[in-house]
């Protein structure tokens, strides 16, 4: 009976956290379709290993960990999509910066730059800056130390600062 109640609760939690998981996957991958596929895989894994979920952990953290694992398995280490900012921003800066349409493109470009960070930096940045997780939770989720979280976050921010420098200039 306890198992049955656990199953019902898991079903409810998944349904409740599905939008946030999809949003998180979108931030990690930078693409809505890819994010949907990632979440589908993550749901399959969640159904397969739901017994590993412990009540003391936040369900969102558990689900995010599965999403991260799926993303990593789809994009193995060393094949990150870290693309240096080159002509895109320059072109945008060369055009008329006052145009509203371009403003929209620019904010999306910031998201794309974040999603193009190396995997670990992207994960740390998204979790801490966009999903609202504390450093401690982030460290626990990624199974790294808190110091490592701080360091990785600093590197990611420095990289973004550098890559988005033209955009700062435009602002």
């Amino acid at each position, binding site marked *: 009976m306890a198992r049955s109640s656990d199953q019902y609760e898991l079903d409810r939690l998944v349904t409740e956290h599905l939008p946030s998981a999809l949003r998180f996957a*979108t931030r990690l991958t930078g693409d809505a379709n890819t994010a949907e596929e990632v979440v589908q895989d993550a749901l399959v894994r969640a159904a397969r290993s739901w017994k590993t979920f412990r009540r003391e952990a936040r369900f969102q953290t558990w689900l995010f960990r599965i999403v991260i694992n799926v993303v990593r398995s789809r994009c193995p280490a060393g094949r990150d999509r870290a693309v240096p900012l080159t002509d895109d921003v320059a072109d945008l800066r060369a055009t008329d910066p006052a145009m509203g349409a371009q403003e929209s493109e620019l904010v999306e470009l910031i998201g794309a730059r974040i999603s193009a960070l190396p995997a670990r930096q992207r994960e740390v940045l998204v979790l801490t800056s966009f999903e609202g997780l504390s450093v401690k939770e982030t460290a626990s989720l990624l199974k790294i130390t808190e110091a490592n979280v701080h360091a990785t976050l600093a590197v990611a921010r420095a990289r973004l600062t550098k890559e988005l420098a033209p955009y700062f200039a435009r*602002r």
Partner: protein
Amino acid sequence: MGADRNDELPTDGESLDALLCEARWPSATQPAVARLTQHWERVWTARQRRETLMRRAAALAVAAMLLGGATIGWLRLRPADKSIAEVEGRSKAAPGRSILQIESNPVGTTSPQSIDTARHETRRPTVTVQTAASGRAKGSSPESESTVNLVPWRPPNELESLMLAASDRNRRHSLAFARGAQPSTKQKVASESFVRSSGKSHRKSSPATDAKSAEAAIVAWAVKRLVSDSGADVASVSAQIRTAAPSHEEFLLATLDRGKAPEQIAALRLLAEIGSAAAVGPTLRAAAVPELHRAAIGTLVQIADSSIVGELVLGEQNADLQRTMLAALLSRGESPALEQFLNFVANEGTADAALAAAQSLKDPPMDLLFSSLSDPLEVRRIAVARVIGRIDGAATTRRLIAMVESGVNRHEACIALLSSRGQEAARYVDTAAEHDPSLAAIFSGARLFSVSDQPPRS
């Protein structure tokens, strides 16, 4: 993190934070969430169904294991319980009944039923001994005396004594095992007496070993009997040890391997009656020993495959043994054996021995022979016709004549008639040849295939 809209270049983290706040990604659409929700429902439902099935399968497997274990345990314990119940029930309810049952079965012809009944009798040895003394022994109860008055009693013969003692030993061990008690010294002495009487030492005390020892003693008794009495009925002795000693073949093969020559011959005679294919190899080895050769051949013709017998026929130097083997092949009444036999008939080198063997048979398989007249191979049809002709007999001749006149296998029937040594067949051949020119032509052609040692009929 509100939008920081200053026009200066970013120099600190706040500006970056402001930019990050403006970051946007493709928003999750409602259809995408709906699709994912449906996907989750499908995945989750399938997973739950699978887990339910696995739980049920595990429960079924556990139940099957328990049931299997219970069944095995019941099967193992049941015979012992039943024998105990029978022993106690019979001894309490009808103490004199078993003696009556012994009388109802003639002692000279021991049957399994009489042995089984006699087994119960030995459970009260005191009564048995007293009745054997016709009630003159001291201490005989009125009940036993009345039994003696009702039926005459006779002592068990040697085989029955062995079997009864073996049965008693097994039962006593079962009882001791079931009750968790060791048999008393007196019981041990009594139960081991029969083994010593057969000249075998008894050292192990497990029930399985005891049963084996008892079977060995029974087989040894049978061998000894055949050695001492060459005219003993082998079939009867074999039937007795087949019933009393399930592992008789094992002990017979051991005797064949390690016994003296007379014992080996006796073992071979018993194996001929109750041996299986497992005994063929050791018997073939025994056939290589000159003094065992005849007995081994006698066994092999009974238990070996027809192809092996055929090989033995070819290698046999003794004409009598060769004829014996050929007769055994034909008397099997099986198609493979008949084919082997017909090959020897078709072979001119062995044809005479094969035909003589066929003639010596008292009850040849005539139906099989006549059906072989329609064999697709002409060589076999001719061979079987020669065999039928040699077997002869009034009924066979009439059947052959009917076949000639009805036109069924006429050519083969003519060969058989020409091969026959009977007067009726000879008269028919002469008469038919005179009155029917077509038959005369057939007989003329068939004469080429008929037995060569026959004088020409015309």
